[in-house]
Structure formats: C-alpha cells, structure tokens
C-alpha cells in the first residue's frame, strides 16, 4: 500500500476510460478548432474584416478600422479576447460533466456486473485505495485532462483569429501576446480546481455509493431517489400549505440537497448555490476581471454549507468502500 499502488490504480482508471476522458474531448477540441477556426479564418479571408464594426460605441467602417484602432483600443480588444478565450472551449467542459457523471455511476458497478471485481480483489490492493483512486480520477484526473485540452484548443482558436486579422492588416498578435490575461487565464482555471473538488464531492460520493450498492440500473437509483423524494416532499408541502397554511420548513434544504448531490460536478455550479456570479465577471468595456472569478469562487468556500456537503460526500465515499469490501456477488 503506497503511492506506487495509487499511481497504478490511477493508470488503470485511465486505461479503462480513455475514450470518454481523453479521446472524446480531444476529438471535440480538434473539431472545434477546425470548424470554428476554419469559419473565422474563411470568413475573414474571404470577406475581409467586417465592414462595420462597433468598438467602444463608435461605428467604424473597414477603411478606417485599422487606422482607428488605437493602441488603447487594441489593448482592450486583446484584454477581452485573452480574458475570455477559454470560453471557446466550453463544449469540452460540458462534456466533462457527462464524462464524470457516468464514470462515477459505473466505476463500482461495472466491475461487479462483469465480475472482474474478483480479479481486482485477488491483488494486494485495498478497497479503500481502489475507491479513492476512482474519486481522484473523477475530481482531479478527468478535469485536468479537460483543462489541458481546453487550453490548447482555445489558444489555437485565439491564434487563428489573430492570424486572420493580421492577414487583413490588423495586427493583434502584439497586444494579445502582451496581455497578461493570456497567461493568467489557464492558471486561474487551474486555481479553481480545489474549489471544484469541494463542491463536486457530494455528487461524486453519492454516485459512487449508488454505484457500489445498486444491483441493477444505477442511473435510475442515482437520479430517481433524489428526484422522487423531492417530488414527494413537494406534494406533502403543497398539502400542508393548503391544510394548515404553513409549508414544510425543510423544503428549501431538500431542494438544495437534491441539486448538490446531482449537480455538484458542473464547473462553476458553486455560484448558483451562493450569491450568484460576482459582478467582476460581467463583461465591461475593460474586458472581464478574471481574477474575481477566482476570488469569487474561493469566497463560496467561506460558508459552512460547502464543507458540510464535502463531509457528506466523504462519508458516502466511505460507505462505498465498506460496500465494496463486503458486497457478496454470489
């Protein structure tokens, strides 16, 4: 039992899930670059820079564009572009949600269904190590792979756009490369990973628990139990409201629990559990303030609820370990 075992367990998870964790985002990222980048390049190359463009509220025509773009304006455009370019890879993060969801749901179920669990259990690897390697794969390995691919894809798109502009005589390379946000954005994204882990734990714990418990149809159990209990509570709530005029006090909590055990793996979901998107993130004429994304995200960890959820998640992970230890497959 050592870090070497953990390394091999993580590798094992990657072998098994290479398709959904690596190839799928790689292919989608490549398609994104090809299709979106191709469209940008073709559009600008074939039709030139848009005839009318509005910058800072001033409408300019093509001829005046290059001259009218002052150094300041270019810097603003560059800041907008470098602050937001990672957003172009958002399809990859959308895919990550599904990849992690179904990964957790099947992580402890498939090995029981095909009985390969008996092979894994014949090796000197504890159930705790095995389940923890699956948690780490869900909250660290998969997001890190997606982040790396997203950074590469969105950088490629940014440079394609810059190249296309420069073909039209509008050189954006200088100001883009000089913008600190170009380099800071991926680092900020990386800095969000610990926040992601904390908020994702309840969902990952719940899905792994169901995965190690369900005899059949883990998806139905994982989604059905919270949704149906919520519906029943809603019904009781409505009935009580009619009869006594006082609705169930636990309703808001029940809703939040359901949302957190199913939606915790959505990147950025933490803003919806708290005050909402911090004002610094709304695009202004100065671009967006990427730094406030990080500080705003960490601010969501200040309350108890994030940590209570993480603790619940950890307990459910422990439950999954105990179940894997003693579940008899006949």
């Amino acid at each position: 039992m050592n870090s070497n075992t953990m390394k091999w367990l993580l590798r094992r998870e990657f072998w098994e899930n290479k398709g959904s964790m690596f190839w799928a985002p790689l292919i989608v990222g490549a398609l994104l670059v090809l299709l979106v980048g191709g469209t940008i390049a073709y559009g600008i190359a074939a039709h030139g820079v848009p005839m009318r463009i509005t910058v800072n509220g001033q409408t300019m025509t093509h001829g005046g564009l290059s001259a009218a773009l002052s150094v300041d304006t270019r810097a603003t455009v560059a800041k907008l572009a470098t602050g937001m370019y990672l957003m172009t890879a958002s399809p990859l993060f959308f895919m990550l949600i599904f990849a992690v969801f179904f990964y957790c749901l099947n992580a402890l179920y498939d090995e029981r269904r095909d009985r390969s669990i008996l092979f894994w259990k014949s090796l000197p690897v504890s159930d705790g190590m095995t389940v923890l390697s699956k948690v780490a794969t869900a909250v660290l390995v998969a997001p890190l792979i997606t982040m790396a691919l997203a950074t590469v894809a969105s950088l490629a798109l940014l440079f394609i756009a810059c190249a296309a502009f420069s073909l039209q005589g509008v050189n954006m390379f200088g100001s883009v490369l000089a913008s600190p946000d170009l380099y800071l954005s991926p680092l900020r994204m990386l800095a969000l990973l610990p926040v992601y882990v904390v908020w994702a734990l309840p969902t990952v714990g719940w899905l792994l628990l169901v995965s190690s418990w369900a005899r059949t149809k883990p998806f139905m159990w994982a989604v059905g139990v919270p949704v149906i209990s919520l519906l029943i509570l809603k019904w009781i709530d409505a009935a009580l409201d009619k009869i006594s005029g006082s609705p169930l006090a636990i309703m808001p909590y029940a809703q939040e629990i359901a949302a957190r055990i199913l939606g915790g793996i959505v990147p950025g979901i933490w803003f919806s559990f708290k005050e909402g998107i911090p004002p610094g993130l709304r695009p202004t004429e100065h671009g967006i303030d990427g730094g406030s994304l990080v500080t705003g995200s960490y601010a969501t960890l200040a309350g108890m609820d994030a940590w209570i959820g993480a603790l619940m998640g950890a307990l459910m992970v422990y439950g999954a370990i105990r179940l894997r230890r003693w579940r008899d497959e006949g």
Partner: protein
Amino acid sequence: MSSVISAKGLSKRYGKRTAVDGISFEIPAGRIVGLIGPNGSGKTTTLKAALGLVPFEGELSVLGFDPRTQRDDLMQDVCFIADVAILPRWLRVSDAIDFVAGVHPRFNREKAERYIASTRLTPSMKVKEMSKGMIVQLHLALVMAIDARLLVLDEPTLGLDIIYRKQFYQNLLEDYFDEHKTIVITTHQVEEVEHILTDLMFIRDGRIVLAASMEEVGERYIEVMVAQDKISAANALQPLDQRTVFGKQVMLFDAGPGGTSRQQLAALGETRNPSVADLFVATMKGSYA
C-alpha cells in the same frame, strides 16, 4: 503456526439457506488440497470466506490472519482465481502485466511473459478480442507468476481445452509448487487433478464428509473386482458402492479401522486403489437424487 488454513465451526448462511454448516478443518503448509463437492455444496462459499470476500460465523484463520479484519495483510501472501471471475474487456495483455507488476511485490514479470509466450496471446491484445480459453490463459499466466504462500484455484481450467489443461497442472506442479506453498483447488474434472493432489476434502451439503491425505485414502479405500461366485459374500461385507464394468461387479470397500481387512478383500477378487472420481461418486451417493 503450522496450519495455513484453520477453521473451527465455520458457518455461512444466506437467509434461511445454510451454505456452510459449522465445518472445522486444518490445511497444513506445503500441501495441494482438492476441495471436491457437487454444485451448491458450499465449497465456493468456504473459499470465499477464507479469502475475506464474504462475512461468516465461527473461527477462521488464514496464514495467521482473520480474513474479516485483516484482509489487506492477507492479500499480500494469497492469490486466487475465483470460480467465474472474468478479466475486464478493456484490459490489454501488456497493461495487465504492467498493472500486476506495479501493485504486487511478489510478481515475477519474466515468468508471466514466459507463460504468455507459450500461448497465442500477444502483448497488444485486449481481453474483448480473446476467446474464453485465451482469457483463462492470461489469468493463469498472471496468477502463476505471483509467488504467493497460498493459492486458491476455484475451477481454474474452466473453458480450456485438454492440452492446455494438462500443461497447466504440469506447470503448477513443476514450476510453481514447493514445500512453502499451499494450493487449494476445486474442480469438476477430478481425474485431471488427482495425480497432483496430496490431500482430499469432500464437502457435501455444507459439511465435510471426508478429509484425508492421498496416502490415507489409498490405504483405506479398496476397490475389488469381485469374482462371480463371491458376490453374496462380498455383499455381506457391506460395500460402500458397487457398479458393473464389462459384466463384472466392482465394489468399493472401506478398509479403515473397524472396516473390512485387506486379506478378506483379496480373497474376493482382484483389488486396486479406487480413483478419486469413483470414491467421490460413492461418497456423494444420494446428494444428486
């Protein structure tokens, strides 16, 4: 600690059904034990209890560990092939070797590769591309390369053709087994393992009905080809079993203490040691009814 496995009053119930009914046995080190019984007799459950895969009642010590609470320690020294375990479909031969080499301190990579080389498996092959027999070959190659003190094989050769089965048992005896190791085998093909076993354990309805070394079995049980004129005399000695081979009566006797003596039996006709399969059939009479 001389016993590798020591059980006292081991029981396992599934709901109302009793799979293992308070059995006690000892398996010393350096033995190859055949655990033999019909389907549902409790042999797989007994092995699963010993491997810490199922909870149980009673006392059970494996290599000095309690499989319930010390499974992680136990698994450093134990390896097993469970009855219908299957390797995951996505696993590649080379990855499987890398993984076991990575997590098992007692894995001999060279040995595994040597076994693999003697089959039609290639390093880049995935389990989903293999025939059933090839999967078993890969599994056996991995397990045989692990230098475990206790090896438990539950139907290890299921799905293999006869040439490879023979070769496997040959390897097991010559290449794997030594006096520090203990092997417990269950199989339906008793005749293929009987020549390598040192001990026999028959289990029926969750109880052990016979536990003896092969020498004891050889001394105790005698099969007699009874001459035509001595059949009634032979019947009087209460044979355990009788059958007809080419028109001749073959009877099985217990020549143990308190039983019939060898001289008595020799007078009845030609005597020989029964095969384990015949002994098994005689012992299990009625449990298939």
